[in-house]
């Protein structure tokens, strides 16, 4: 195989030494360096997008217009969504994949290291373009992260072109990242590492990568049509020219629904790594976990129009999408049941990664329940575009995706830095986050059911009390995340030395290499039993 070749390359690099300073990071082709870059970038974006959430919650603290104008409010909701989805959650998962996938399958690096470098380094430019558009005359994108036409075409401001190009760059980056993951997993597995021996994080990422390749081009198509509708007189989404604004939503959600699974499947993978470790018991139903992930991925292509029940679909369409959506809860349920069965009669300890994982299982399931409720079309007519939906997707994305990222970060941090993190501080981070996130998002269910629409800068007075509570939860959650930065910073600087295995029950190749993981691992493939 090409193993010898790779060895020769690595050897040569070591001879000359990696460039130091900023050039090391600009020119790096090392999966660990690029993984760190992705993770730090996503942390930065998490705080920028979070800052926008703080502006939103400050404005909504009381009824009336106090702090920002409605148009700027809309820019905040739009860019908050875009940054959190494309800047915080997705790059964080790519970062974790970069660090962990090669180590988990016994590969020396990602299969396409130069492309890996490029797929990261175009990202800062994408977000620079997006963020700078906020300072344009007329402001940044203000049509929601879903950019429904014709609000995003005929009726949008001049920054739309910048929005389109920035989404294009994000898409290119994601597609390259996904190709890299697939090629790596297919070609660089250590001898004996068969598909059904791969850790679940690797499996879920493999499936996620296929989803990315399938739908990111669809998003690129959607933004390109928005661009030509706005600037080049086409009428894809304008009835006056023979187009259809609802077609935009079909195209967008054909991307958008698999996209939400892109943001949750790797989370399932992380949780499936952590729960067995701290239960000191093998994952229950490994193969059914793989099949469940694959069926969720397949089903995700036939449920997109459940985001569009109110657009006036024919009855048959509404029924089809209702049934398919309800069906998704079956494989998702299987996953939750398997995690619980893994814990059952285990020997449990509750280190910080496990605490975040347990919180994930409970709170993500609550998000799943509200998802099931939203699937019921007649009830969806009442829930749609209210704060009930906002509560739903923040439960699956914040206490789902982001909690899993936190869990993963705490789980692997000692392996990355070679030091144990400050457990007291990390526990404070966990408990503060857990309480504040529920103060933040749980009351949203109530205001939504009581009839508060989403994406409004001002609201009727009967929603005032809950909104004040929600805002307080929001500020508390935002501030709590500074503790995470403190933990990570301290852990990089030093602390108690971590052992190779780090956690008592940890199993897998990544725990067999030293802590911190050396710059090059598995230059000769490991033996897989």
């Amino acid at each position, binding site marked *: 195989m090409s193993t010898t070749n790779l060895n020769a390359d690595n050897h040569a690099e070591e001879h000359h030494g990696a460039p130091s300073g900023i050039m090391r990071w600009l020119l790096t082709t090392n999966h660990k360096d690029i993984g760190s870059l992705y993770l730090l970038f996503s942390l930065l974006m998490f705080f920028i997008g979070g800052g926008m959430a703080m502006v939103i919650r400050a404005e909504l603290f009381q009824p009336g217009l106090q702090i920002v104008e409605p148009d700027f409010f809309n820019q905040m909701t739009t860019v908050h969504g875009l940054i959190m989805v494309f800047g915080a959650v997705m790059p964080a998962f790519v970062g974790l994949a970069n660090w962990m996938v090669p180590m988990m399958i016994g590969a020396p690096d990602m299969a396409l290291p130069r492309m890996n470098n490029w797929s990261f380094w175009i990202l800062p430019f994408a977000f620079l373009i997006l963020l700078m558009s906020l300072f344009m005359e007329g402001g940044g994108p203000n049509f929601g992260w879903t950019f429904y036409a014709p609000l995003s075409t005929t009726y949008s401001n001049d920054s739309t072109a910048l929005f389109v190009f920035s989404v294009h760059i994000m898409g290119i980056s994601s597609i390259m990242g996904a190709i890299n993951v697939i090629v790596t997993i297919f070609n660089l597995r250590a001898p004996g590492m068969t598909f059904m021996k791969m850790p679940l994080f690797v499996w879920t990422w493999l499936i996620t990568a296929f989803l990315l390749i399938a739908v990111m081009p669809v998003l690129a198509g959607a933004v390109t049509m928005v661009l030509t509708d706005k600037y080049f007189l086409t009428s894809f989404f304008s009835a006056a020219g023979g187009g259809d604004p609802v077609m935009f939503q079909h195209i967008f959600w054909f991307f958008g629904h698999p996209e939400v699974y892109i943001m949750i499947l790797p989370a399932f993978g992380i949780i499936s790594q952590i729960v067995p470790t701290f239960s000191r018991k093998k994952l229950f139903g490994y193969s059914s976990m793989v099949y469940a992930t694959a069926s969720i991925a397949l089903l995700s292509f036939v449920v997109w129009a459940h985001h569009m029940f109110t657009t006036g679909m024919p009855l048959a369409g509404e029924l089809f999408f209702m049934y398919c959506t309800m069906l998704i809860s079956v494989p998702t349920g299987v996953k939750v049941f398997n995690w619980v069965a893994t*814990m059952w009669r285990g020997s*449990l300890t509750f280190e910080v990664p496990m605490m975040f994982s347990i919180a994930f299982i409970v709170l993500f399931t609550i998000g799943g329940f509200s998802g099931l409720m939203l699937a019921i079309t007649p009830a969806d007519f009442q829930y749609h575009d209210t704060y009930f939906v906002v509560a739903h997707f923040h439960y699956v994305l914040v206490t789902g995706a982001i909690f899993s990222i936190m869990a993963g970060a705490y789980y692997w941090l000692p392996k990355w830095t070679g030091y144990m993190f400050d457990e007291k501080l990390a526990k404070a981070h966990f408990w503060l986050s857990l309480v504040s996130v529920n103060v933040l998002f749980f009351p949203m269910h109530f205001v939504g059911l009581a009839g508060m629409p989403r994406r409004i800068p001002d609201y009727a007075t009967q929603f005032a009390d809950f909104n004040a509570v929600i805002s307080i939860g929001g500020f508390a959650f935002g501030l709590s995340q500074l503790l995470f930065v403190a933990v990570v910073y301290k852990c990089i600087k030093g602390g108690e030395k971590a052992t190779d295995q780090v956690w008592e029950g940890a199993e897998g190749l990544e725990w067999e290499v030293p802590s911190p993981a050396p710059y090059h691992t598995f230059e000769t493939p490991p033996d897989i039993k």
Partner: protein
Amino acid sequence: MTAKQSSWLIPAAVFANNAVADEMRLNMTKGVTDISASVYDLHMIIFYICCVIGIVVFGIMFWSIIHHRKSKGVKPANFHESTKVEILWTAIPFVILIAMAFPATKTLIEMEDTSDADLTVQVTGSQWKWHYRYFEHELDYYSLLATPQAEIRNERAKSANYLLEVDRPLVIPTGQKVRFLITSDDVIHSWWVPEFAIKKDANPGFINEAWTRVNEPGIYRGQCAELCGKDHGFMPIVVIAKEPAEFKKWMAEQTAIAKQAKEEEQKLLAMNMSMEELMTLGEKAYMANCAACHQANGQGIPGVFPALKDSAIALGDVKQHIDIVVNGRAGTAMQGYGKQLGLKDLAAIVTYERNAWGNNTGDAVQAAAINEFLAGK
């Protein structure tokens, strides 16, 4: 934003006595139609199902968390798969879902059956107001937010139906099947009245259908549910359901008023209003219809909505100015006001725009000039 806007308060005050509006609610409304009641039931059934599943699953998990701890000296068991169990917990949720799908399907089929309506109302959304047209009657009108800016800007205490009050509510009869044909003039809006369990998107260039049969007379409030730009949060919906006899009486009154207004408008053509009258009326109409985009100071929002102060249109050819106000400008957010405002208001607005904020053209545009323009094409 002071005395001139107090005239807005009159219709607002009429509907400001709904005490229910201020009550804090936690759950979905049961509404006032048979459909909304069955939607509520579906919501509660699925909610209870979720609660039961949640209690069982989390119960088992927390049992494990409490009892299967390493600190209690528990040695881990060895089992890690069971096809039987996997099949079981795939099958049980599946059966629950099928049981749930039946009532949901039944309600959905009823909701989508818009046939045999007694009354049809066309609902048209535009930035940021609703327009209602009764198909069987000679009546159509716009319905705008009635909450004054002073309340929104926290300069005055908020009234009971803050942001949920309009100048002219939609009126429908109780006990009759009312069909709504929903569309839009510009971007996508969504017409939502929670008490009827209707939420239907208003798509430009397409018509959606919905229907209701209201059981109880009353005032029902809703809001636009689809992000439609800057003032999405400020385009409420108010529907008054009246007993059929009262509805008939109301309809007769309204059609008579509308007819009279049309006749008066014709008389107006012969009259000339003074510059002062035109400017006073113009300012009021401008604030109500134009200021949301072009701003009260006529300076617009740079990069989004053009300024009228010192603009080539407002200072240039009168005909062209009238044309834009009446017909709008295709491909932009500027809609045509020709069909939503009377000749007098249109004339006053054009006059105001040509003479306010230092645009000193001195042009007094009369209703007759607008009429001429409309007839001219």
